[in-house]
């Protein structure tokens, strides 16, 4: 069989489509392969269309150019090794010499303790180099050894450079307080429990030694129980950065080890609300206890207060948008009474969710944000509420009314009904669809009310983009609901004698949709005084005008920048 007689395989077809290699002569004569090629073309066109037409909006990487320039100035340029023959020969000889030297002298001894500490200090300063306002999160493991016991804890330390605002999160408070007192008493910095700069200063009154990446200092001063007798700083061979420290006192030893480091630009969201923690009031504590929350991440920021006169509203706003988005992505905003507000320099999430699984899911979503320590969560579950209420409520279910729905009477009396409409499934479907879309409507309104135009314009681009994306998703859901409602009620509309008027787009789509929601409930959930014919007619007209309104391309764009005038506060 010649290559002209057999069909092309997928790889050959793709190669031909991509213009790689010669055009296959077989394609000229084979309808089947040409059809497959066209199908392939359609698929690649769709992929390109999806990428090109619906590409993500440009997300500006915050200050990235300036940051890259700064980083480039700080980071040493990579060197291309062994690029010439001479260099290769020199490298081989050098390597041999180094081997010989290594055998005699251990490299760790090549520098003095002071040199090692200076190098380490420089490495420490480079952590946030090039970032004008950096936020540094370090995680530490702390261990206290006494003659009686060993106690350990882990905690986070958040520090803003260069302002120096600082706070810790988590850990054993007593142990932390103890080690911080020791650090302060010895002129070391609690915000940098492992620091070459602090160590260097303290070691002025000590004899120091350096061996194999460990600097040891023995104090020459005599002091009380809180005075350091000796200290050890362990450096990382790769970059000389200090990674652990041992503080030796007469009665106990503290070992602090860095377990994680994250450096981020503090904008956006900018979180300068790093005021010292005050003790929560007894009332607040009581309320929190009553919420029965095992995951008390709200305690992280519950008492944070924005320093008076600080002007960082925009940045806290950005954080609020991140929180809204996290809740939105977790599916928590529809049909719930969760509220997000910017308070005391942080963001507070309050409300009630159905159960503990849901709450745990939400807490995970919020924890995933880099800025979770600035988020206070006070979410209770229905189970908690019932417990607090003492389970006093009896069965609240009401008897289901058995009287026929007005719409049922209308359909049964209609002379033109050939195929009787099954009203119960239809009513169930209509009510379910309209209720679901009402959740979208309320969530949308809540967002729009929370971010009026003036506030929206102050937000950084990423926050505006997130808000737009959330708004679009709600609008899309409402659009789909309108289509479903139209399709589902088609048999009912067919019973109306008059023709439907030509629709005009509603000027007040969100308010109109709410009215439609009420109408659908009245007609399909059986309000006694509903006139079914007028109700069905009104539903048909509103669906048509809303279909036009929600298809308007300008609607999403007008959501936040030019608010729809009839918007009311969310329920």
């Amino acid at each position: 069989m010649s290559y002209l007689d057999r069909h092309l395989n997928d790889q050959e077809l793709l190669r031909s489509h991509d213009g790689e290699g010669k055009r296959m002569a077989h394609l000229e004569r084979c309808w089947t392969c040409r059809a497959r090629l066209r199908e392939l073309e359609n698929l690649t066109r769709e992929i390109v269309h999806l990428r090109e037409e619906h590409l993500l909006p440009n997300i500006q990487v915050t200050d990235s150019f300036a940051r890259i320039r700064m980083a480039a100035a700080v980071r040493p340029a990579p060197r291309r090794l062994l690029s010439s023959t001479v260099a290769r020969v020199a490298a081989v000889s050098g390597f041999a010499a180094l081997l010989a030297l290594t055998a005699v002298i251990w490299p760790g001894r090549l520098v003095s303790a002071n040199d090692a500490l200076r190098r380490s200090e420089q490495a420490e300063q480079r952590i946030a180099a090039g970032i004008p306002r950096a936020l540094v999160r370090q995680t530490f493991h702390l261990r206290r050894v006494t003659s009686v016991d060993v106690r350990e804890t882990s905690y986070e330390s958040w520090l803003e450079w260069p302002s120096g605002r600082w706070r810790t999160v988590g850990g054993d408070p007593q142990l932390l307080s103890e080690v911080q007192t020791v650090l302060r008493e010895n002129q070391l910095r609690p915000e940098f429990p492992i620091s070459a700069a602090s160590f260097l200063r303290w070691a002025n009154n000590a004899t120091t030694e350096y061996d194999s990446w460990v600097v040891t200092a023995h104090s020459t001063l005599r002091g009380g129980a809180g005075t350091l007798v000796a200290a050890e700083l362990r450096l990382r061979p790769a970059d000389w950065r200090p990674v652990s420290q041992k503080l030796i006192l007469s009665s106990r030893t503290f070992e602090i080890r860095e377990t994680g480091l994250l450096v981020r630009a503090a904008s956006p969201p900018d979180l300068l609300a790093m005021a010292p923690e005050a003790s929560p009031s007894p009332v607040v504590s009581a309320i929190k206890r009553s919420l029965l929350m095992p995951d008390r991440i709200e305690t992280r920021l519950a008492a944070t207060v924005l320093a008076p006169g600080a002007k960082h509203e925009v940045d806290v706003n950005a954080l609020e948008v991140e929180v809204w988005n996290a809740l939105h992505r977790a599916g928590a905003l529809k049909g719930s009474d969760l509220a997000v507000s910017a308070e005391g320099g942080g963001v507070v999430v309050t409300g009630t969710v159905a159960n503990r699984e849901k709450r745990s899911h939400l807490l995970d979503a919020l924890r995933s944000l880099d800025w979770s320590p600035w988020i206070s969560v006070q979410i209770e579950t229905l189970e908690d509420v019932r417990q607090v209420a003492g389970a006093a409520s009896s069965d609240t279910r009401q008897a289901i009314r058995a009287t026929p729905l007005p719409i049922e009477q209308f359909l049964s009396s209609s002379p033109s009904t050939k195929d009787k409409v099954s009203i119960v499934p239809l009513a169930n479907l209509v009510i379910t669809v309209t209720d679901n879309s009402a959740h979208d409507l309320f969530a949308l309104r809540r967002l729009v009310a929370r971010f009026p135009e003036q506030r929206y314009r102050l937000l950084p681009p990423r926050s505006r983009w997130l808000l737009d994306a959330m708004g679009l998703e709600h609008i899309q859901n409402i659009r789909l609901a309108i289509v479903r409602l139209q399709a589902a009620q088609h048999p009912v509309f067919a019973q109306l004698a008059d023709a439907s008027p030509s629709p005009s787009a509603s000027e007040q789509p969100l308010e109109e949709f709410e009215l439609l929601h009420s109408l659908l409930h009245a007609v399909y959930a059986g309000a006694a005084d509903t006139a079914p014919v007028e109700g069905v007619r009104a539903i048909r007209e509103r669906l048509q005008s809303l279909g036009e309104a929600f298809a308007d391309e300008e609607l999403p764009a007008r959501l936040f920048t030019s608010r729809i005038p009839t918007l009311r506060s969310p329920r």
Partner: protein
Amino acid sequence: MQRADSQFLLPLLIAADASAEASTDVFELSYREHSSGVFRHLVLLGLDSAAAEDIHQETFLRLHFELKKERQLQSPRWWLLKVTTNLALNYLRDNKGRKELGGTPAQDILDRACSRGADAEQLVLGAERARSLSRALDQLSPQQKACVHLRAEGMRYAEIAEALGVSISTVEEYLTRAIARIRMNLK
């Protein structure tokens, strides 16, 4: 409130030397021209925005040093895509199994697809098709996804092969399998 010593905390700033000025101009031009494209490419490869930002920065840092060596880059765009793709693939390999948070690119694309209006049926059909296609693209392996997106960027097989450090026939294989997998997922 704890106040830290500003001398201690101030970032170390070293001014770039004057000889680098010429390369800096080219660098700035390249940055302005390709920055958002590189970022989009990263997001389309399936990276979350934080990782995309990091790799975006690393890529341009490398470009900076490459230009500093006075090397003539025939096509900065091609070079950037090559480096970006490799860094992204390394990241995805190292973070295999890590839970992605937030909206996926597919969802974002879909949001926009659905905002375009047109009539309702078209909207529903278009949105459904876009959703399926996005999902199908998401299900490709990182290498397959990289091949598809680099091809869609206009790169030839040989260029993709060089970028990924594989042979041309491997690229063909990746693409063929990717197309077959997308087709299967769309059915």
